[in-house]
């Protein structure tokens, strides 16, 4: 197990492996999306609690929101791996995750805004959850901006990785602080505003989970594809890249 692991921590072996995995995750994404959306649009009631059809935004909204947070955690984890084990591949994966994470975050904000307009009649409000999502977007942007501001790839990787870790420590604090601006009333605040509550139609729940899974698979596809690009870019002077190119021709 451990031997395999380290074998695949080298870009040389990971590159073809990623190439093989991409189609697999691609098909999974397509199947899950079609299945989930079919279920969500045709096997579910037209209303959720007191909401009309617009609740169907839920499928992408929740998926995107979950992915935005999960991807950040993954990004920080790979950054940590890079700093600890000094493996180039880890840094590459971390920096490949960031744009996808930022897109998911943006999507959560965007769909949230559309939903908010229908449900609350406003595009934007300083609701804790929305604010923390916005901050998450800033953290992604900071990571990408720092990385692109440094020319030397080695320094860029390590500096951005450190930032991701600092962010990881701070993210829970940020979220918690915004969700609970008044520490004396935290408990009260926690119970409210769980949108939908527990009385969701099971069909909706199923569709939502399936689409969220599709999002996850999509992230694999996008991240793996980007990692391959980064590997090629960074390793362009190595012999294996050149040999691979010759094979292709």
């Amino acid at each position, binding site marked *: 197990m451990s031997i395999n692991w380290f074998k695949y921590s080298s870009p040389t072996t990971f590159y073809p492996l990623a190439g093989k995995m991409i189609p697999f995750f691609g098909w999974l994404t397509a199947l899950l999306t079609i299945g989930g959306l079919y279920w969500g649009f045709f096997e579910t009631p037209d209303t959720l609690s007191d909401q009309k059809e617009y609740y169907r935004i839920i499928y992408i909204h929740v998926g995107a929101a979950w992915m935005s947070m999960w991807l950040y955690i993954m990004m920080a984890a790979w950054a940590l791996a890079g700093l600890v084990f000094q493996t180039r591949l880890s840094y590459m994966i971390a920096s490949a995750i960031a744009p996808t994470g930022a897109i998911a975050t943006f999507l959560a904000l965007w769909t949230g805004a559309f939903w908010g307009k229908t449900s609350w009649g406003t595009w934007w409000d300083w609701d804790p959850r929305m604010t923390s999502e916005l*901050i998450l977007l*800033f*953290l992604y*942007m*900071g990571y990408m*901006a*720092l990385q692109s*501001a*440094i020319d*030397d790839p*080695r*320094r860029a990787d*390590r*500096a951005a990785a*450190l*930032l991701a*870790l*600092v*962010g990881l*420590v*701070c993210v829970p*604090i*940020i979220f*918690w*602080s*915004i969700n609970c*601006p*008044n*520490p*004396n009333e935290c408990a009260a605040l926690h119970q409210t505003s769980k949108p939908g509550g527990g009385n969701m139609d099971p069909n909706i729940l199923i569709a939502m989970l399936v689409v969220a899974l599709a999002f996850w698979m999509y992230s694999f596809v996008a991240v793996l594809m980007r990692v391959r690009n980064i590997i090629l870019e960074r390793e362009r002077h190595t012999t294996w890249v050149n040999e691979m190119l010759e094979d292709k021709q």
Partner: protein
Amino acid sequence: MRDLTLAMRRRTDVLTTLFFFIIVVSLFPLGAGTEKMILMKIAPGVAWVAALLASMLALERLFASDFADGTLEQMLLTPQPIFILVLGKVFAHWLLTGLPLVFIAPLVGLQYYLPDEAVSTMMLALLIGTPILSLVGAIGAALTLGLRGGGILLSLLILPLYIPIMVYGAGVVSASATGTTDLQAYFSILSGFLILALVLSPIATAAALRISVE
């Protein structure tokens, strides 16, 4: 130590920070109108935003000049543990940008019609909160060292991390202005942050410096 020497050498710097606050704080009523009720509501926010900005403005130069003239390299090569030197720098930064704000708080209270207890709460909150700003900011300053557009990049990295401090710092002032008496919880959270920052930030900053100096 070295930074104290430098800091003391230019005692005018502290004065400049003071004026910076006074100006920023006085700007708002000019831009936002002078209704008493509104001013009272935005006072904590304004004071904290001013604290954030003053901290950030000075952060850029925290390591930059040391980096440019080669003293940073020398510091990394002394037998002192780097995090001690970092702590020294951060302390100097706080003396210049955080502490003056604590003293200026009563003036803000006056301009924005805050009640007296709120003013003293604000001073205490600033006293606990501003060192956190300096500590957290040092990480960002070390990371963006020597980069073009570093100042604004720094703000991008640091401001999201400043938010919790501001939320609680402003929160406790609002709470005290509206007469809530139980401010204990706020202060324990702020102190918790301070301890966390005090432990983690020097390590992270030292690591970032090593990366940046290469």
